[in-house]
């Protein structure tokens, strides 16, 4: 079977199931008694097994099969859940993950899993007998009620034929034919035996298959299911007449028993086809539970990107239409354009939400990571996730994972103290890291807080001064917040011992840069011995944003609304000079002014210096600056476009947008203008 076309789906779904496995295993560790968790794990492992077997990845199938066996044991209280066992299970899932990743990267999914299998087998040993029985049942369905050779699972069609025949008074036989050891032309003998079968009745199934038999791909024995009206003895004697047939074993085969047997097995193991649902209460419960979930389809993200691009063009044209209709002043036209604007507004919302994915996609890997790190560091840490369903644009999700990993590692390594230390401080031995995400306005906030040691201001300052991040004179003037933010400057590390987790001094500044490049910001708050909190603010989407359009002489620029605090018009006399820099007193704060005309070397036209200046107050974290512009035009929703590779590193310009009149306006990166 050509399965390449299903490969993507397989990888996607496998990854999902593996995540599920991880999640449930973590749950299981907390509540070893909870049987519903086992059921969940079982279901995930089982689906994974089925999929990988279909795709021909036997390693995955084998490993998941072992897992299934173990969980079956747990479910029926044959195996007790222990911590070291969970470790091995995690290991196994890690292996599965690695295999699936390998497949995703174009590998063949081959990997040495033997040591894991041995471990798993050891766990299984506690209930060895049961497993054996199950194994044999699985491989030799006929065995449970007679002593015959294999006839593997029958399909629906075959079962129905067998049923029909028995209803009509035919008998179903499972016949094993042993050819003598020195038989030379096995294929020919088989042919002769089959000829006899044809006369006696009808062969429903043979094991190995007829083709394999003809090619002599078998030992000396083969088994067939025969439907016949004749008696056992009669059949036997007729077959024995073929020379070189050593032995014939005939058993009566009952379809009812077979199907019953299958049902039992399914209800026990939840194996295979969902044909007998009424018998399987558990599965049924689950399937009804499933149907209450909303229906979804998978769409390639590229297609959504194309859709988004097309829509962006529509937004540009919409702007143009609005402008034209304003100029023409035709009622009908205006009405139509207004309606179109509304509809496209709705459309924009839908397209944007289509690209939204719950942040859970990023969060769900953290519990496992924390568990692992906690072990490595000999700390006891628990993670508390709030608001995992908060949705963010796909592009933001893709970028935010690494910074979060870094912050969490940082909190684990530097924040949470060792258990004995915590005890000495009168805190519970178990540390907690809280991960919270929520929407607010056009932004998403992600907060990572820990109840660890907080940030030692003095130590930070000392380090900053010794590492020459700041001067000692400057250090005096810093607020608490500013001191905390020093740890995100490059060339900084406060851990007394450098570990491979964090503390290489390259981490947090990268985090800060990434977040700022996404148009977000990060702030730190901490209380000594009570913990610290990193708050990240991110825009909901990166492609459409609200901006304030401003004019510099005859050029138009856009300032992202997210960074603007307010706009104001000030008199020239209010400008003060401090250290050769123009500043203004803005609500009690000294705010430096940035003359955009000068910074952007805008060609001067005949406009004279004005009495009043239009100032856009922007902020970056706690710092502010006033951008001096010639005039303010107004707020607008624009589509962010890149300047292209050729002009990728332009100072203080983060991109461009196309205005209603078709002209390009540049978007100002106000972060670059604030020192």
């Amino acid at each position, binding site marked *: 079977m050509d399965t390449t076309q299903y490969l993507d789906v397989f990888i996607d779904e496998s990854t999902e199931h593996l995540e599920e496995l991880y999640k449930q295993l973590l749950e299981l560790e907390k509540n070893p008694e909870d049987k519903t968790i086992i059921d969940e794990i079982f279901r995930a492992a089982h689906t994974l097994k089925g999929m990988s077997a279909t795709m021909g990845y036997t390693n995955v199938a084998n490993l998941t099969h072992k897992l299934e066996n173990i969980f079956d044991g747990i479910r029926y209280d044959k195996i007790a859940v222990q911590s070291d066992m969970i470790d091995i299970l995690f290991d196994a899932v890690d292996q599965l993950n690695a295999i699936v990743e390998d497949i995703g990267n174009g590998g063949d999914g081959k990997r040495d899993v033997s040591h894991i299998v041995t471990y798993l087998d050891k766990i299984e040993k506690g209930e060895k007998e049961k497993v054996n029985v199950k194994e044999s049942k699985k491989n030799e369905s006929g065995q449970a009620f007679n002593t015959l050779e294999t006839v593997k699972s029958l399909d629906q069609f075959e079962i129905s034929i067998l049923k029909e025949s028995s209803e009509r008074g035919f008998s179903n036989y499972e016949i094993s034919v042993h050819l003598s050891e020195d038989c030379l032309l096995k294929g020919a003998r088989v042919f002769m035996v089959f000829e006899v079968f044809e006369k006696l009745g009808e062969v429903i199934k043979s094991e190995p298959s007829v083709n394999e038999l003809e090619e002599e791909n078998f030992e000396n024995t083969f088994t067939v299911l025969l439907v016949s009206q004749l008696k056992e003895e009669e059949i036997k004697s007729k077959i024995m007449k073929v020379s070189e047939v050593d032995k014939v074993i005939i058993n009566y085969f009952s379809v009812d028993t077979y199907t019953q047997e299958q049902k039992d097995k399914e209800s026990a193991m939840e194996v295979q086809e969902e044909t007998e649902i009424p018998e399987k209460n558990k599965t049924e419960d689950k399937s009804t539970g499933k149907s209450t979930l909303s229906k979804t389809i998978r769409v390639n993200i590229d297609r959504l990107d194309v859709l988004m691009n097309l829509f962006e063009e529509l937004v540009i044209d919409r702007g143009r239409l609005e402008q034209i209709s304003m100029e023409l002043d035709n009622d009908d036209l205006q009405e139509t354009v207004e309606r179109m604007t509304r509809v496209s507004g709705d459309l924009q919302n839908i397209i944007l939400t289509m690209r939204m994915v719950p942040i859970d996609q990023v969060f769900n890997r953290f519990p496992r990571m924390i568990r692992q790190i906690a072990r490595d560091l000999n700390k006891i840490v628990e993670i508390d996730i709030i608001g995992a369903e908060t949705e963010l644009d796909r592009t933001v999700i893709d970028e935010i994972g690494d910074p979060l990993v870094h912050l969490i590692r940082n909190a684990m390594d530097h924040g949470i103290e060792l258990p004995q230390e915590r005890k000495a401080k009168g805190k519970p031995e178990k540390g907690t890291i809280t991960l919270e995400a929520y929407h607010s306005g056009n932004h998403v906030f992600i907060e990572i807080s820990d109840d660890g040691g907080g940030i030692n201001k003095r130590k930070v300052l000392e380090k900053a001064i010794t590492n020459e991040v700041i001067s000692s004179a400057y250090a005096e003037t810093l607020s608490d917040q500013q001191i905390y933010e020093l740890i995100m400057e490059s060339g900084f590390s406060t851990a007394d011992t450098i570990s491979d987790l964090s503390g290489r001094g390259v981490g947090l500044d990268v985090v800060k840069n990434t977040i700022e490049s996404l148009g977000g910001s990060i702030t730190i708050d901490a209380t000594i011995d009570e913990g610290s909190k990193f708050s990240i603010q991110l825009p909901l989407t990166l492609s459409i944003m609200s901006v304030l359009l401003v004019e510099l002489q005859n050029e138009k620029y856009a300032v992202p609304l997210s960074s603007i605090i307010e706009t104001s018009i000030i008199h020239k006399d209010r400008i003060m000079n401090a250290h050769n820099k123009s500043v203004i007193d803005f609500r009690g704060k000294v705010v430096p002014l940035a003359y955009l005309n000068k910074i952007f070397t805008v060609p001067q036209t005949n406009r004279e210096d004005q009495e009043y200046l239009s100032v856009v107050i922007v902020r970056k974290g706690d710092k502010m600056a006033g951008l001096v512009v010639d005039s303010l035009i107004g707020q607008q929703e624009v589509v962010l476009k890149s*300047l292209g590779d050729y002009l990728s590193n332009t100072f203080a310009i983060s991109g461009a947008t196309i205005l209603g009149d078709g002209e390009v306006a540049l978007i100002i990166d106000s972060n670059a203008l604030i020192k």
Partner: protein
Amino acid sequence: MNNETIVDRKVIIFQLNDEEYAVSVQQVGSIERIQPITRVPQTADFVKGVINLRGVVTPIIDLRVRFGLKETEFTESSRIIIVYLDEMEVGLIVDAANDVIDIPEDTIEPAPEVIGSVDVDYIDGVAKLDNRLLILLNLQKVLTKEEINELKSVEG
């Protein structure tokens, strides 16, 4: 008979200061009339800015300035040639663009080296065709990003 097939190079011819230059058609996306250009501050002087090319923001360079020629006003015949190179999309302002021809590979000679003249690396060679002298451009070199960055670091 010569069995070797003579490979022709299909090129687009444009004028710059009465000289004729050629770029391969494969690299050319379209030829546009001059349209409003938005200046991008703090870039090299030959970067004129960006235009809205059917919804795509495209950087524009003035080839006259790039090649050290005298900058002139745009005229009716001025054109923007949109070229593609390694995923980059850039528009080149030229005096005129009006011809597509095939240059036989064997008429192409390396750029003449004359003592005293400045060596420019963005010329692939010259082709003599009838009475015309065509200068073949190496777009890779014309659009080298290092030059922009260099200029930037000087300014910064």
